[in-house]
């Protein structure tokens, strides 16, 4: 840089740079202490429940359509013992959960082995992937008419819907897990003369377990959600069916009770799987 240029720059710096004082610049992100966090969180929750109560209790929204929080809670406790639409809340939940468990296990039992095999055998990958890509864009819930037609509305139909929701993450995560196994490990196994099938079961499967378990968690969430959808449309029992019945009778508190129950069970399923996931990850040394 020539001296002349430098002088020019320095002069211009004085004229332009000094002319404008610092405007409101970005401030660093605030760090909250635990107690501040708790306090704000409590305010948020109280505000949420407060507005809800206010809307309901003042009659701004008709009580019939928006019961107050405590009324939902009372209804929740009532329904634990009192039958509604043929069964108590607990019984409805139990029958929903059974369907969920069947559909979910079926999806895992088919999806995981298929995913692993696709990760090892190229031809299988080439054959399944286009079919899978084609079916992927069909929302699980869109299978409802065929599910009802093929398996009825009792147990079979809903299970098929759950299966449709739960299957893709099982397959994809097993496949990815198998594809991203360290090549050295596979080559070491091959060097030791391991057969193809044994590589799948004794190398790919254990190495993919973290990925598979992560997939199972996603899968369970989708399965639970698909189940509720299916029960809303075709079912004669279960918590979704109970909701539809309550909706038809304008029993808003009962509808909300069901939502609460669905949320709680969904949360429990997720927490349980998360526990398993952390335990497995720890055993695999990737905390």
């Amino acid at each position, binding site marked *: 840089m020539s001296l002349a240029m430098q002088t020019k720059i320095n002069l211009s710096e004085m004229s332009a740079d000094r002319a404008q004082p*610092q*405007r*409101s*610049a*970005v401030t*660093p*992100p*605030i*760090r*909250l202490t635990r107690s*501040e*966090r708790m306090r*704000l*969180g409590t*305010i*948020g*929750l109280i505000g*949420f429940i407060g507005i809800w109560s206010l809307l309901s209790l003042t009659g701004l929204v008709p009580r019939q*359509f928006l019961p107050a929080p405590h009324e939902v809670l009372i209804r929740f406790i009532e329904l634990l013992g009192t039958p509604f639409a043929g069964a108590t809340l607990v019984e409805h939940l139990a029958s929903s959960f059974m369907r969920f468990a069947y559909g979910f296990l079926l999806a895992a039992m088919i999806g995981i082995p298929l995913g692993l095999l696709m990760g090892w055998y190229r*031809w299988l990958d*080439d*054959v399944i*992937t*286009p*079919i899978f890509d*084609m079916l992927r*864009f*069909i*929302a699980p*819930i*869109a*299978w*409802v*008419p*065929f599910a009802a*037609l*093929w398996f009825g509305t009792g147990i079979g139909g809903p299970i098929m819907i759950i299966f449709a929701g739960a299957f893709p993450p099982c397959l994809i995560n097993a496949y990815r897990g198998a594809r991203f196994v360290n090549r050295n490990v596979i080559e070491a196994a091959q060097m030791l003369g391991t057969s193809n099938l044994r590589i799948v079961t004794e190398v790919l499967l254990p190495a993919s377990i973290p990925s598979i378990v992560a997939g199972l968690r996603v899968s369970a969430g989708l399965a*639970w*959600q698909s189940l*509720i*959808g299916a029960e*809303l*449309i075709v079912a004669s029992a279960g918590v*979704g069916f109970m*909701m*539809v019945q*309550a*909706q038809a009778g*304008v029993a*808003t508190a009962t*509808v*909300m009770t*069901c*939502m*609460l129950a*669905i*949320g709680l069970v*969904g*949360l429990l399923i*997720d927490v349980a799987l998360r526990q398993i996931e952390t335990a497995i990850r720890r055993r695999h040394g990737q905390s």
Partner: protein
Amino acid sequence: MTNNRRLIVGFATLAVIAAIWYVMTEATGWISPGRFPTPLDTWDALSQVTFGEYANGALYEHAFHSVKLVLLGFMVAAGIGVPLGLLMGWNSKAEALINPIFLLIRPIPPLAWIPLAILWLGLGDAAKVMVIWFAAFVPSVVNSYTGVKAIDPAVIEAVRMLGTPRWRFIREVMIPAALPMIFTGLRLSLQASWTTLVAAELVGALYGLGRVLNVAQQDIYPGMILVGMISVAILGWATTMILGQVEQRSLRWMQVRG
């Protein structure tokens, strides 16, 4: 080339499936036409709903109706969800205030809101938009939030060192940095929107592809069920593709290779 190979095997697979479909239904009748339609049944159903009417309307009317509701719900959700997520990601006070409410509501799957939406807003469009909004909202917020949280602290220090004004920071640093995650969220939101729409229309609607599925199920008309499913899949695919294009355009800097 491997890409070519995949394409060939892919097409071959689909051709084989079509052939099996034909043989199993039309040619041999091993699968009863009351359970799964023959190719010809499907064609008949398609021309009936395309040139005539089924379930109160032609195919394009149903499709248009469904797409309209999905886009409406999706856009409102993204329009509110992304800014809220950005705010929660940057401002820890907003995060602390709102997060517990989220934790309370999030475990309830969007589909479980359908009865309440119908109770509140009836069987018309408003209820569907509400449920779609709900389904699309959560992924938009969560991913935008994660995107901001993941910004390299050194980049924020560089921004401060350079004396960047707040608004310029938001526009030129925070949003571009979070954009890949924002798009991940939008893709999930769009997917959730379609799922929710179909469910909501199956539960009760006057128009829309879900309505077609519903009526076809009641009529035990497998050809029409298949047409309805394929239509939903194609529209879902098309909207996802459009979003993907927007994403690629917005994230051009990531695509450039050195």
